[in-house]
Every structure is written in C-alpha cells, then in structure tokens.
C-alpha cells in the first residue's frame, strides 16, 4: 500500500511519508507502553498501601504527556505530508495528462479521468491524512500491549499472543476476498453510471418511444446489477467482520477465564489480574476497528491503483536529440495506423509542399480526421512515417512540433474564462494590438460588440454561452494569433449556418494565406480553393489531383461534387 502510494507520488516524497509513519508508530508504541504503568498503580491501590501508587501515577502522567506531544506532532506531520503530497500529485498528474497523446483520451476516458482527478486524488491523500494513523495505532498498540502482558505474566501473554496470527490471517483473507468483489462492484457502478448518462442524454428519443424509466430495461438491468454487486460485497465482507470480532472476543474470553483460573489457584495476584484485564480491554477495541479501517483503506487503494495506471501510461516517446525542421512541407510515407483492431489508415503516401493547400475529401469513416491527427502526432503511426520539413515528427520535440501547427477543430472547446483569455491562449505574450487584429480578422469583433462585457465577457464552461459559430470564430482568432506555419482544419464549417459560415470562411482564408494547409472539408467551395485534392476511402487515397482534373475524370470525386450541387431530389 505504502509502496504503491510512493510510486504514485514519486519517490521524492518518500522522506516525509516515512517520517510520518515513524512518528505515528512511535505514538502508538508510547500509548501501549504507558499502559504497563497501570500494573504497579493498581497493585498499590488494591494493596494495603494505596499511597505507594503516586510515584507510578506521576510516571504515568509523564508518559501520557509524552503521548500527547507525539500525537500532536504526528498529526501535524500527517497533515503537512498530506497537503504536500496533494499538491505534488496534482502537479504530477496535471503534467502527465498534458503529455499523454490526445488519442488516449478518446472514448469514455474524459469522464473517467476527470472523476479520478477530482475525487480519486483527494481520496488517495486521505489515506495519509487520516486513515494511516488509526490503522497504525490499531496494529501497533495491541501488539505492544501483548508484549507488556507477557512481561508481567507469561501464561496470559502466551494466550494473548495466540490471537495475533489468527487476527492477521483473518484480516489478510478478508482483504483478498473483498478485493475481487470490490472490483466487481466498481465495474457495475461504472456500467450503471454509463447507462444513467445515456438515459439522460437520450431522453427525447426514449420518450418518443414511450420508454420512460419503468420500461427502459437497459437502465433498470444495470441498476439491479449494482444492487446485486453491492449485496455480494456486503455478504462477502461479513465473514471477515464476524471472524475478526469472534477472534478478538474469544481472546478476551480466554484471558478472562484463564486469569480467573490462575487467580483462584493463587498463581497471580488479584490486582495484577485486573490490571491485565484492563489492558486486554484496551487491546480489543482498536482490533475491532480494524475491519472498518480496512474497508476504507481498500477504497483508497482502488483509487490509488487507477491513479497509478494513469501515471504509468506512457506518453509518446520524446526524442533524445530533437531535430528542428527548417521547412514546413508535410509528407506521409506509407503510413499505416490501426485502432481497435481496425486499419484506419492503410499504407497511405502523400506530400504537401510548403505553402500549398491540400483538401481531403471522402465519405464519413474514411480516415480523414485521423490523417490530420497523425500529422500533429496525436498518435504515433503503426507503420511508415510522417515528416515535417523532412524530419520525422517523432524526432521533433513535442512542444516544438505543436508550436508549428495551428489547428481548428469542428467542435471547439473553450476554457471558462473571458473571450480575451481564450484568444490569447494562441500566443500568451502577444500584445494588445495583435490580439485585437486577430479578433477582427476572425470577425470575432462583431460577436464581442454584441456580448455584455465585450472582451471580458465570460464564455461559460466549455464556451457554453457562445453559439457554435461564435466559438468557431474564437478558435480561428486563436489560430491566427498563434501564426503557425502549418494549418490543419477539420470540417470547420460543416455544422454552421450560412451567416456564420461566411464569417468563418473569411477568417479561414486569412488563416490559410501563405501557409501549408491540410483541410478536411465537406463544403465543396473550400475544396475548390485547394491546390490539390485527395479523395479518401477506407484509409487509402482513391483519387488525387487538382479539383478540375478530378472533376473531368468523372470518378468518385466528380460524383461527390455532383451530389453536392444537386439542389433537390426527384427534380
């Protein structure tokens, strides 16, 4: 557990963690040892000279003071270590997430990662801050007490020691059997969450089919699975909890019976026996709390494991001696890329000379967007090579590579901040005039005029307060400001109404001027301005040439073009 914690956190934090663990152990030891003083105190009080108890009581007082001090120091150390670790883990996770390939985030990953980062990290840190101390104390204090007991009476000590391996075995067994059911439960929970989200998002459609909750079987099934899994968890936890309680209580019963037997036989003094039984009671309580703490630790462990998995995901390899490309022509050489068992790009070769525009056209699912992603190294290719200025993108420093691309996606996400902040993201050190110029060029100025607050209007989470076209203009302004030599456009205008489309087109034209451009497009008029067009199908280039050439060839592209010009069906 601690080892995994340290791996997740990074070993530079080993020092504070070890110190905290040592302090907590010392605190628990002092607590256990201080109880030894109960024996002489009680012996004196139950004997004929109760006054003899005072020196021992002073000693006990001293021990309690020492315990209090240690406790304060170790608590504080736990908090400080916890907060340092929290900060460290967040920074580590943040940096790591920024380095992972974008391809990694596809599918359900986004939700998973944000849950992990917001709740998982806090839970993991809670281990240090408030589960570790009770856990250590619940283990160390009883052990110390057993040792103290043995020192006073070997028979009682032996009887108490017998419980140690039993309790340990039960704890370990329970831990193992719970791990499996816990995992199943988490899986069911995860599955159900997916179904709930689906149910919520699909409300309009589900209602159209009259499928509200009672009838939406898929959701109900997964909710029932959750119940089944949680029952199984509860039932599989029971033997551990009952077993532990049984073992601890049996130990106490044995000590009570054995002590009574010894005392009746005159082998142990009454005061001594009573003191040892008080100690036995002190031993039992923390042991019983073990099953509760154990459950909480397992929860934290689960989060830690997932955190560990994310942190161990390899980011794209960084070149040892990065090369800086001088030119900005793009070249794909026999590129093959597979995802999920499917070949998305299949031995594709093409090149875009510096300053030229390439349009990529093709039916949906033909690999157009993937092509753009490979150029910017969102993924690494499975075969062949992608080169920028003649240099394999894998040999270029990732930050340097990214700095050379301006990418405009179809779906734009903005940060919750002002419009200006979002535009400035393109080049944080840009001066005021440059930012304004970029905004004007992207026709963002008219949007800004309309918004209350203008430049400092907040865009809302993910840019929710702007329409799709307005968000698109922000992203174009951002790309213009960035002024990168290569521009990648992904179906930029396909979801826009004509008014926004016209505005966006103006911006795009300015963005493309003099740069190397690869654009995925459906709107044929963008395509027409390209120097060259490739028609993609099934991850391969099926046609290639200028717009006019392809049109005159009368192939797939020409068909596509015709279809797009046909005003209406059946006329």
């Amino acid at each position: 557990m601690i080892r995994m914690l340290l791996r997740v956190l990074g070993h530079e934090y080993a020092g504070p963690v070890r110190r905290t663990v040592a302090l907590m152990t010392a605190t628990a030891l002092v607590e256990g040892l201080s109880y030894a003083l109960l024996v002489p105190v009680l012996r004196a009080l139950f004997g004929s000279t109760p006054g003899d108890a005072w020196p021992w009581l002073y000693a006990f007082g001293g021990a309690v003071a020492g315990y209090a001090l240690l406790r304060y120091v170790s608590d504080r150390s736990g908090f400080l270590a916890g907060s340092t670790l929290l900060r460290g883990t967040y920074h580590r996770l943040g940096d790591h997430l920024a380095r992972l390939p974008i391809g990694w985030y596809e599918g359900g990953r986004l939700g998973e990662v944000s849950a992990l980062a917001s709740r998982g990290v806090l839970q993991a840190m809670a281990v240090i801050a408030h589960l570790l101390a009770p856990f250590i104390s619940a283990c160390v204090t009883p052990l110390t007490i057993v040792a103290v007991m043995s020192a006073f009476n070997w028979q009682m000590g032996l009887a108490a020691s017998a419980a140690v391996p039993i309790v340990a075995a039960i704890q370990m067994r329970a831990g193992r059997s719970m791990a499996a059911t816990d995992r199943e439960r988490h899986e069911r929970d995860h599955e159900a969450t997916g179904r709930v989200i689906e149910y919520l998002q699909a409300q309009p459609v589900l209602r159209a089919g009259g499928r509200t909750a009672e009838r939406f079987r898929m959701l109900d099934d997964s909710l029932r699975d959750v119940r089944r899994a949680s029952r199984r968890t509860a039932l599989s936890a029971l033997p551990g909890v009952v077993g532990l309680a049984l073992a601890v209580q049996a130990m106490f019963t044995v000590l009570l019976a054995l002590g009574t037997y010894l005392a009746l036989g005159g082998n142990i003094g009454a005061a001594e026996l009573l003191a040892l039984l008080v100690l036995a009671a002190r031993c039992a309580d923390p042991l019983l709390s073990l099953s509760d703490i154990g459950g909480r630790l397992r929860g934290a462990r689960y989060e830690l494991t997932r955190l560990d998995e994310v942190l161990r995901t390899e980011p794209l390899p960084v070149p040892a001696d990065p090369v800086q490309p001088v030119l900005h022509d793009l070249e794909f050489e026999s590129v093959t890329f597979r995802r999920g068992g499917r070949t998305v790009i299949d031995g594709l070769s093409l090149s875009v000379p510096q300053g030229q525009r390439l349009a990529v056209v093709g039916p949906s699912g033909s690999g157009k967007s993937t092509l753009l992603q490979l150029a910017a190294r969102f993924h690494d290719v499975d075969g062949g090579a992608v080169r920028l200025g003649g240099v394999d993108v894998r040999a270029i420093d990732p930050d340097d590579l990214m700095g050379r691309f301006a990418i405009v996606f179809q779906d734009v996400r903005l940060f919750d901040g002002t419009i200006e902040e979002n535009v400035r993201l393109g080049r944080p050190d840009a001066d005021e005039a440059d930012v304004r110029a970029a905004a004007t060029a992207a026709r963002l100025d008219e949007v800004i005029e309309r918004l209350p607050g203008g430049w400092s209007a907040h865009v809302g989470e993910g840019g929710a307060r702007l329409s799709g076209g307005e968000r698109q203009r922000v992203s174009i302004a951002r790309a213009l400001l960035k002024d990168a030599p290569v521009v990648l456009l992904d179906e930029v205008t396909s979801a826009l109404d004509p008014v926004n489309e016209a505005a966006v087109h103006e911006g795009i034209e300015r963005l493309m001027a003099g740069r190397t451009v690869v654009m995925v497009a459906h709107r044929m008029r963008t395509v027409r301005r390209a120097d060259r067009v490739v028609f993609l199908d099934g991850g391969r280039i099926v046609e290639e040439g200028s717009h006019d050439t392809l049109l005159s060839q009368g192939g797939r592209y020409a068909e596509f073009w015709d279809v797009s010009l046909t005003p209406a069906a059946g006329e």
Partner: protein
Amino acid sequence: MFAKLRDRPGKGVEDGSDETRDAEVPRPFLPRFAAVVILQVVGALAGLLPLLAVVEVGRALSAPGPADREHVWAAVIVGAVGMLVRLAFTSASSGVGHLLDSQVQLTLRRRLAAHLGRVPVGWFSRRRTGELAKVVGEDVSAVHPFIAHTPGELVSAFVVPLASLVYLFAVDWRMTLITLIPVVLAMALVPLMMTPTRLREQEEFDAGMGRIASSVVEFVLGISVVKAFGGGERAHRAFLTAVDDFVGSFLRMVRGLAGIAAAMQVALSPPFVLLVVLTGGAARIGAGDLPAADLLPFLLLGLGLTAPVAALGHGFDDMQAARRAVGRIREVLAVQPLPEPAHPTAPQGHRVELRDVRFGYEAGHEVLRGIDLVLEPGTVTALVGPSGSGKSTLVRLLPRFFDPTHGSVTLGGVDLREIDSRELHRKVSFVFQDVRLLRTSVADNIALAVPHADFDDVVRAARLAHIHDRILQLPRGYASVIGEDAGLSGGEAQRISLARALLADAPVLVLDEATAFVDPQTEQAVRRALATLEGTRTTLVIAHRLETIAEADTVVMLDGGSVVERGSPAELLAREGEFAAFWQAQRSATADRSGAHGGVPRGGRSR
C-alpha cells in the same frame, strides 16, 4: 476528506422535514430500518456484560477471605455469553443494514429515473448531464451511512454510555463526575473551533475544494486545446493555481485547527481518561472514601463515556455528506414533471397551430414574443433567421420539450397539454442536432421509437437513410452493438438517427437542417427519403440550405423572437425585405455552389 478535522462544528444542520426523511428511507423500509437500529443497540448493550463480568470477578477476588468460586465462574460465563450476544446482534444488524441499504438505493435510483423520465425534456439542456448522473449514482450511494451504519452507531453511542452512566452513578457519584472530566474538557474546546476566523478558514477550504473539482474537469475536457497550443504549463495554469490555492487554504486551516484538534483528541484518548480516573481514584482510595474494588467499573466503563463525543465527530462528516447528498436528491425529485392531462383528448388530424406563443427560459427574458403560426398538413414550412432569433426554441415546443409561458400550441385542434404524452410522441417525430445512439444493437437503435417494429421495416428505414450498406459491413450487421463492435462516424450516427425518425413515420416531422446533412451524400439521401414520405405530412424545418428554402411551401423569417416576414419564397423575395437581404447574404456566402443552380426560387415545389 481530510476528515481528521471532522470534529469541526456543523454549519447549520438542516431541518429534517417529512420529505427529507422519505428521501432517506422510503416508508416501506421503515420496519427493517428500525430492526437494524434495535439489533445494533441490543448488541452494543450486551457488549457491556464482559466488562461487568471483569468488575464482578475483581470484586470477588479482592474481597477479604476465600473467593466465592461459583460466583466468579458465573460472572465469567455471563461475560462470555454477553460477547456472543453482542457478536450475533451486531453482525445481524450489519447484515440486514447492508442488504436494506442496497434495496433502498435501488428504490431511490428507480424513483429518480422514473421522475427524470417525466420532467420536461427542455429541463435537461440546462442541467449538466454529469451533475444529474452524479445525483443518481454517487449521491444515492452517499446516503449509505444514513442507513447501514450511522443511525445504529449513533444510537448505541448514546444508549450505551447512558446505561454505563446510570450504573456508575449507582456505584459512586463523585467518581462518576471525575470520570466525566475529559468529556467536559473536550466539549469546552468546541467553541474555540467556531470562532469567525476558524469558520472563515473552513469556508475557504470548502470553496477551494470546489474550485479544484471544476478546474480539473475544465482542464481534462480541454486537453485537446492544451495539446494543440503546446506549452502544457501555460495552458493548465488555472488548474495548478486552484491546486496551490487549495493547499494554501488547507494549510491555513490546519495551522489554526491543529492545536485544538489534537488537544481534543488527546482529551478523549484512553491514556488520558485512565490517567484522570486513576488520579481521582488514588486520591479517594488514599483518603479512605472509596473501596479499591469500586475503582474497577470506572477503569473499564469510564472509557466508553467518551464515545458520544467521538461518535459525534466521527459520524459527523459522513452524515453531513449524506445530508448534502439527500438535499441534491430532493432537489431533483422536486422538479415539477410536465403535467399530464387528467382526461387526454385525441387530436383530430395533424394541423399544427401556434397562437400568440410566448416563451422564456428565465423570467423576464423572452425568447419567443408572440408567435402566430399555422402548419398545414402536406406542407413544408422553412424557418429561417439569424442565430439567436428563437428558431431552435420554437421547434422544440412541438414535441413539448417545454410548454409555452403564454399562448398555446395545438395539434389537430387540441392543445398539446391536453394530449397524452405518449400519443404526442407518436404524432411528432424530430431530428435535432445532438445525435444519441444507445449502447445496444443497431436494429434496436433504429427501432427505438417503435419497439415492436418488424425487422423488414427497420431495414427499409435504414435503406432510405442510406445507411443499410454500412450496417451490413459491421461485424454482426444489424445485431452489432454501438460502442462495442459498431464504431460509427458522426455522419453515420446521424443517418441512424434519421432512419429512426423515418421508421417512426409520425405525421408531424420537425427537423434541424444544420447537422442533419453532414456530407453531400447524406444530404441527398435525406432529401430523397423525405420526398418519398411527404404527402399529408406536416413538416417544419430549420432551413440552412438555399435549396431547402427555395422548395418550401412557406418561409417564416424569425428575428428577435418574432415573425418578421412570412410567405412563399418567391413572394418574399419580390418584397425585397429582410428575407430578400438574408437570401442575398446566403447566396454570396455560398456563391461558388450556386453558380449553376439556386438562382431565383420557384414558388413551392412541383408535385
């Protein structure tokens, strides 16, 4: 989290009204819930017996003269039995509690799901799905301690010390008061934690935690931007700032509270309690006030007196979290469902009429300002206008995502509010921007609105939507499951959703053209499909393509939530008003495409 500071005082415990309690434990479960608590309390009380047995053994052994063997062994047996009873009852309580808990959670989740299936669809767009999913998932789980743990533990944390107190007072009242000193000390520390400074620190801590959660979500969701613009450090600055702020506020809070919290922990710790009892005991035994044997009960039971304070602190965080969760669950359950008519009326025909319809998402901000509109069966009405003019809102009134705040929408002469919602959904189908495919087979996805459709009909709809061939390429054809072995692109998903609407074959069709046609092939496919289905259908379309506008029977131009112009495309163009200007703007925007076509619109389509 970091709940070690859990002893911190509450921020106003909410009132427990009947409704709240109902959200915690639905009524049918109350008997079982009571059983959980009673079993736990009996078990906890039985747990006192072994301690009392030790006391009895001690008394018998330390009494002058030979010990009463029978009495001693009887005490040992009572102690052993007490332990067994405790074990049996607390295990039973825990077992029943957990089973009850899973049942209650299922019931709550089903209730939430059923309720969410009845609230206005429009309500969802303003609530984030993630938040709602959290309510159904995590928040319901967070009610767990309410049911399975805390009530039993809390009750026994008070009942057991109370029983102990009664016993201890009977033994020696002055000694009892001495034993209570640690509890009093701990309580005396509580006000120190409630000073304004401390409270402010805690609020900052809570706020900081909230900021971390939202900035991490922002950061992760925006990762593609972070990557695309390089310089990771710069782009996730907001996130790291939130982290540093949070850690700062945490440290401030710890610095303020650590001393007090540690003092409280120490005051309640067994060594300190034993020290107090022994010191008081030694003084009184020395003075001859107390028989030595009477000290024993205080050493054994006295420790248990701190339990309520400890339990209050211990259960507090969980209970607070559970309360907040219940609050959120209640909030969702309190959303007014879309009212269903008591006596539904069946619409006659499918003429749609909007009369003086006004609507606003928030009070005081109207999006639609008095719309009068008639959609005749067998006609296509194209809705045009600048973004923000209310087009999307208007079309959403037809499938009753919202009810108008003023005026009425009627279908076949009947107000939508008087039509059974299932009937309405059979009459009105729609294709809107966000395509949702469910993680189930492709065939089920197409047949979503018509669960008992023939497979042949499903295939016909798929063919019409130009997606049949693609489906056959999937590993299991129509049985392939979306997201598992059917990976479809965005355009393909849209065609599935179109097939869905075509299969539903409702007499009123509402569609948003913006994303309905993602590529030219789909666009053509859709046109064809729709053409075959027209006839008596009532169609309302948010039109973006000049072609669609040109072929509509009626064009309605919206601006600022009002109809500014309406008529056939040719009429409107001739009028040279706002629509004509709009048309020209569009034409120049798509100039390259309209070279060969799209000159002057013809009035209506030739049929």
